[in-house]
């Protein structure tokens, strides 16, 4: 399956989705002007991946900041991961960033996927 690799920018996150090497990661800042448009390729990639996923998947969120329009799309991404077997979310937050930790906890309450919380 093709690798999805988006370079991060000052208002968009870095995204790598690589089935062969088992790398699934969204990191950095997310405040694009059009969040639905920005996350569309991610959702499309996950839909394809869901048809023949790896036996287990660790999907990494390592976000420094995201705006509210992105938060809705992050929930859409999480929801699209929900039905994939062996899915686990690795939610990273900076050790003194309580807001990012709380955001992860809230997402974990909204979807049925195991979350592991880690600091960086």
């Amino acid at each position, binding site marked *: 399956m093709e690798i999805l690799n988006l370079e991060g920018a*000052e208002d968009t996150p870095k995204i790598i989705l690589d089935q062969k090497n088992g790398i699934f990661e969204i990191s950095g800042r997310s405040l694009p*002007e059009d969040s639905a448009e920005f996350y569309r390729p991610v959702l499309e990639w996950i839909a394809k991946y869901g048809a023949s996923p790896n036996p287990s998947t660790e999907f990494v969120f390592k976000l420094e900041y995201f*705006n*509210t*329009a992105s*938060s*809705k799309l992050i929930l859409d991404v999480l929801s699209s991961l929900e039905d994939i077997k062996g899915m686990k979310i690795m939610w990273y937050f900076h050790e003194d*960033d309580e*807001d990012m930790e709380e955001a992860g906890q*809230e997402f974990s309450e909204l979807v049925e996927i195991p979350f592991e919380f880690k600091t960086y």
Partner: protein
Amino acid sequence: MNFIYDLHRTMMSQKLILVYQGDFTQETTKSILAMAERNIDSSGEDASIKRKVFNVMVESLQNIVKHSDELVDGEIHSHAAIFLIGRENNRYTIMSGNPIRKSNVKGLDEKLQHINSLDKDGLKDLYKEIIKNTTISEKGGAGLGFVDMARKSGGKLEFEFPEMSADYCFFCLKVNVPRELE
């Protein structure tokens, strides 16, 4: 040219560290954020307070980009809005002002009053309620901006709608972010 000095004195007395007036786009949003971030960094501000201020700034700026009404008055078509950041000893204030059609005032006023009536847990519940049920609007918003600002602020949103003309009010919003951690 006294107005230059007057404006300078107003900015000093109001402890403003940044004022921008004009058209607001994603590009100006990024520039303003970069300037404000450099300023806050160079002041040695605590990282978690900086993040909250950044957060409120983004929502406030993107609200203007997405929702500010175009002012049409005869020949004049204007998108001009204003954005200000103040830093006092005990808090940051993120302020904005933009034209809003009078027909939109009531709905916005009720929304903000509802947000202000909620406590911390109430805001969290409202946030989760909206994020579960919302779809991204044509304008690209999730309907979560004010709720998020209130959560990051920890205080009430301050707002007024002074009249501009027969058809427009000027929506003024002030969000405080305390500099002392809880």
